[in-house]
Structures are given as C-alpha cells and as structure tokens.
C-alpha cells in the first residue's frame, strides 16, 4: 500500500468517525430550534426559522439558574475541600519518612480501589446521620471525602520533585511549618493542583448517582438531576427537551473552550500518574 493511499484512507476513516461523534450533537442542536410540530413532521430537515422560544422556556421551566447555582456550590465545596485537605496531607506524608507516615499513605492509596457503588448504600446513611443529606453543600463535603485519596496520591508524587532545602531554609528563617506551607510550598504545587481541579471538576459537575441518593428535594437539584427530572416530565416535547440539554451543556463546553490545553494536559497527567 503506497503512502498516498494510506493517507487518503486515514482521512476517510477520521471523517467517518467525526460524523459519528458529531451526529447526535448536531441533531440535538438543529431540532432544538424547531417547534414541537416541526420536530414531528421533519426531524432531519433544518428549522424553517431560528426560534429561541424553546430555550427561554427551558431556562424558566427547568429553573436553570437555581440548579446551576446548586451545581456551583457542590463543585466549589468539593474542589476546595479536596485541594486544601489533600495538599496538606500529601505534602506532609511525602516529607515524613516514618513508619506511621508510610502506613497512612498506604491506607489512602489502597482505598482508591473501592468502587463508589460498593459503599453507596451505607454512605447515604452516613450522610443522613451527619445531616449532610439534602443540601448541595453537604454533597460537596461528601464528595471531598471520596476525592481526597486520589488527590493525596498525586500531591505525594509531585512533592518529591520539590527540593527539601526550601522547607529547611524556611524553618531556619523562623517561619512556622503552616506558614511555610501556604506561603512557599503551596504556590509551587500549582501545576498538579490544576490537574486535580480539572479531574474533579469533570466528576463533580457531571456526577449523577451520588446526587440522586443525597438530594431529595427538587429545589436542591444540580443541573444533571434537574435535566433528568425535566426529561421525565416533558418527554413528548423533544424540542423543549433538546433545548434544555444544549443549554445545560453550555457552561462546561465554555470552560473546555477556554482551558482546553490545560484540561487535556490535566487528564493525561492524572491518568498516567494515577
């Protein structure tokens, strides 16, 4: 097979696969601009006029502002909790060379093998007993608990690359351990912190099962839960549903558009080191 044929073949395969990947998104966007009747009569055609009625209706009926705000609370609580707790623990565990430190680190790492599905039933009870069920903030705290092990693992590995002399010179200059951590060490952890934020952002923003189990009042629902409820309620009106799907995906797609390079780097690094 000559190189030229090979190259043409590669383009064809890529193009076909690109159609497969874009097709549902394209169909969803096109039909979200139609009326219910237009979807019914011609699914494949383009909308005759560009109408945003479905979007305004979906925005109101699915209470996008409220559920978007709930999602932000969950995500921010979870990420702040994970970053603060894990950077402290990961740094100290990496610096201390004692048996105790080794054991604690082992415990964290081993727990990465526990699937969420194995603990979901008892975890739900635990959250209820602690009064964390039913609020986005509580959900964020629970998520922080589930996310620290992986983050500690990543911080632990990263800290090894930061020279110990930095800690020592700080303590010689009379800087306390905690101040030294926040003023000197933490700023150096920014690259790995970014990776951790990216990985957890994707998880927390899009999570479904844990929020379903912990949030039982629709006013506390995150975006994904609201869309799930909306889907059940208006399942006959596809135009409206599709508009709500597109609308709720916009924030994460925008984040992706702005931070693509870091996100891609974060995911590759997180996977290779994890």
């Amino acid at each position, binding site marked *: 097979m000559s190189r030229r044929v090979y190259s043409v073949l590669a383009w064809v395969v*890529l193009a076909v696969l690109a159609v497969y990947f874009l097709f549902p998104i394209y169909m969803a966007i096109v039909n979200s601009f139609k009326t219910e009747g237009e979807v019914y009569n011609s699914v494949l055609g383009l909308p005759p006029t560009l109408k945003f009625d479905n979007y305004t209706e979906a925005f109101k009926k699915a209470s996008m502002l409220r559920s978007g705000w709930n999602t932000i609370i969950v995500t921010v609580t979870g990420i702040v909790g994970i970053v603060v707790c894990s950077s402290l623990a990961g740094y100290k565990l990496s610096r201390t060379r004692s048996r105790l430190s080794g054991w604690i680190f082992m415990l964290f790492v081993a727990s990465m093998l526990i699937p969420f599905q194995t603990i979901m039933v008892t975890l739900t009870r635990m959250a209820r007993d602690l009064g964390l069920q039913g609020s986005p903030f509580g959900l964020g705290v629970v998520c922080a608990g589930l996310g620290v092990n992986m983050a500690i693992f990543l911080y632990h590995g990263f800290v090894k690359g930061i020279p110990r002399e930095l800690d020592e010179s700080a303590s010689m200059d009379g800087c306390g351990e905690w101040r030294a951590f926040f003023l000197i060490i933490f700023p150096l952890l920014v690259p790995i912190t970014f990776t951790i934020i990216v990985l957890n952002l994707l998880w927390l923003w899009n999570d479904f099962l844990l929020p379903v189990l912990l949030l039982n009042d629709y006013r506390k629902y995150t975006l994904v839960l609201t869309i799930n409820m909306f889907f059940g309620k208006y399942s006959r009106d596809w135009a409206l549903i599709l508009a709500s799907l597109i609308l709720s995906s916009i924030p994460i797609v925008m984040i992706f558009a702005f931070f693509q390079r870091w996100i891609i780097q974060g995911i590759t690094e997180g996977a290779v080191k994890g």
Partner: protein
Amino acid sequence: MTSRRYRASLSLILFVLPAFVLYLLFLVIPMIQGSYYSFTDWNGLNKTYDFVGIQNFVEALKSDRYFRSAILFTAKYVILAVVFQNVLALLLAMLIESRTRAKGLFRTIFFLPNMLSVIISTFMWVFVFSKVIPALSEYAVFKFLDLSWLGDPQVSFWSILLVSLWGGVGTLMLIYMSAIQGIPQHLKEAAIIDGATPFHMLRYITLPLIAHALTICIFLTLNSSFKVYDLVYALTGGGPGRGTQVITMNILEEAYQGNNRYGYASSKAIILFLIILVITMIQVSIMKKREVEA
C-alpha cells in the same frame, strides 16, 4: 530525641487530620459497615436484625436469577466495551498523530463527549435512536437501520455499546496520543528505512513502546465498565423488563425500590467489589510483566 520524634509525629497527624477525617467518614466507615451488613438480614429501617453468615452471598450467586443475569449482561458489556473502546481510541490516536494538519480539530471533536454529563449526552442519543434513526430508515439506503434500538434487549445491548464508545474513547485517545508522542522519532525513521509496513510499525514499534499506556487504559476501562450505571439508566432504564439491567442497577433495586433488603444489597455490592478487585489485579500484574519484557 524522643520529644523531637514525638513532635514530628504530632505535626504529621495535624497536617493529615482534615483529609483523614473526611476519608474515614465517607470511605472507610461506609466500607466497613457495608461489609458488616452484608452478613445480616437488615432491612435498613428496623432497629434489630439477625446475623445470617454467608447466606446472602450464597443466595446472590446461586438462586438470584436477576442478579445472575445482571452479572452476565455486565460481563458481556465489559468484554466488548474494553476491546472496542481501546481499539477505537488507539486507532484514533494513531490516525491523528500521523496527520500534519487539523490535529487539534479532530482531538477536540473526539474528546468533546467526555466533557458532557453522561446523563445529558445520553438523552441526545435517546432522541437519535427514537426519532432520528426511524426517520432515516424511511430512505431506502438506510433501510437496515429499521430496528428496535431501545426496545429489544438484543439490539439495545449494541445501542448501549455504541453510546459508551462515543462517550468513552476521548480520554483514552488522549492517553494514547501522549504515549505515541513519547516514541523516539529515530526508531520510527529507522523502521521506515528498513521498509516496515504500517502493520509492522504497529506490532513491533508502537505497541511495545506504549505498553504502559495500554496497561493504564485497559485498567481504566475495566473499572468504568464494571461500574456502568448512568449510561444504561438514561438509555434504557435497564429495560425492557430487566433485559439490560447491569450490576449497579440490581444493587440499587435491592436496596431501595420497594425491596429494602439492605443487608442483601450490601453483600451484592461486596461481590461487585471483589469481582473488580480480582480482575483488575490480574490484568495489571500480567500487563506489568509484559511491559518489562518489552
């Protein structure tokens, strides 16, 4: 000396404490409780319950028809999802890396579904399967698409696979791409000069040199496919009947939807944990050995 060591331990404990408390409350204790309840007949509500030994495990594996069919269905899904996802992701990574133009564009297209919530993007597929494909199949060329994509368990198995492929390959592709970029250029050039065909390149250069990425990606896909829930929930809801029920759905059904067999559900959850643990351990140990050889 002892006081210095004591001080070091104290400061270690203080730094680790916040993370450890969260970890204990939301991971360790639920895991221990779950293991404990798996040996009881607790219904999740009563104050009293009985210790029943391994009876739950025996029942789940021997006489629970729905659980067994959920395990079989999940196993079938895992095998095909792991194979197809990795083959497609590797193919995409190699094709994109061999291009000089439009690399970024293709990478974005194939990665995009990974950013979206599984629930939300699967609803788009529900629309495709229930409205778009029926409309397409009215045209003679697409007559073969006239199937019951979500209504017949035989067919919906493949619908589930199709959507899982769509939503899952992006991350794997990125990992493979970064591994391929790590292959030294002179090796590729030497192989081309020696007249290696693309197949030989794949077999003797690419695959051995990205062995670590293969280990990671197969580990990731094994893990995520055994735990699949959102996708099946949004696409078929486990139906029709229990035709496409996966293990996680079966566990939730047992614990909540009317059954309230809390202890029994816990033992099924432990079984899921053990299945994943054993299979991924075997996979990683076998593949790690091969990495060293390569």
